[in-house]
């Protein structure tokens, strides 16, 4: 008997590939973790530095924002670390927000059609990247004097 070449194949490693719908699911978890740990710890440090007075806030600024020209090696390294954290937290915030809004729509039973589902998963990624870029440009021009 001749084999029909058009018959459906079951999922296999050779046809398995990442789709936006799969990526957005794991990104939602990963970004949630980043926000709950790095994001919230930095926020609490900032709030307690404000509450702790001028000296306490100066320490926060030296380690997190900018150590200035006479900063120690540790402070400058810490500045760069927190710039990466800020970028990761900003992206995580917008990604988790867009993905979370998508989940709320899915929860009311809408958006499960294959093409619609794929489209909005992609839109959430694009929106998050766009918003992160916008914030990064704003911060770079207003606070870091880069632009």
């Amino acid at each position: 008997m001749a084999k029909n070449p058009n018959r459906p194949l079951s999922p296999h490693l050779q046809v398995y590939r990442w789709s936006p719908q799969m990526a957005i699911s794991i990104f939602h978890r990963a970004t949630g973790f980043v926000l709950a740990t790095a994001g919230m710890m930095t926020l609490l440090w900032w709030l307690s530095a404000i509450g702790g007075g001028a000296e306490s806030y100066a320490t926060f600024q030296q380690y997190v924002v900018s150590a200035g020209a006479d900063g120690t090696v540790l402070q400058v390294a810490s500045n760069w670390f927190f710039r990466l954290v800020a970028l990761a937290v900003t992206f995580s915030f917008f990604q988790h927000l867009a993905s979370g809004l998508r989940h709320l729509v899915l929860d009311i039973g809408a958006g499960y059609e294959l093409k619609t589902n794929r489209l909005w998963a992609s839109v959430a990624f694009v929106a998050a990247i766009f918003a992160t870029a916008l914030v990064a440009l704003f911060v770079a021009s207003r606070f870091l004097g880069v632009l």
Partner: protein
Amino acid sequence: MDSRTNIGRVRGLGSAKHGGEHWLKQRLTAIGNVLLTTWFVASLFMIPSFDQAALAQWLAQPLVAVPMILMIANIFVHARLGLQVLIEDYVHDDGLKFAAMALLNFYVIASAVFGIFVVAKLAFTGAPA
């Protein structure tokens, strides 16, 4: 000890009425977070000065301190529910799972209480010298 099966033991008792609790809380705090973090991010863009005295004055206002406290509480409840699912899905060893859940509870409760205390102290006693 009785010799009935698990299903035999619970049959006829009805549901515990807690089935949807975690799911629903996660969504309600998510909606709360959309509102509160939108307020917070918008505020960050509108704060005129980022020096300590100006920030302390800003944070001590009732209309800033209250939403900030709400945001801290709401975020940590949401984070507790979300990270609980991560642990349940990825930590398979019973002992490790117990330890991870205990650590998670300590983390979110300690962090939330710390954050709320910091904001409340500033709002009630004013900015330190």
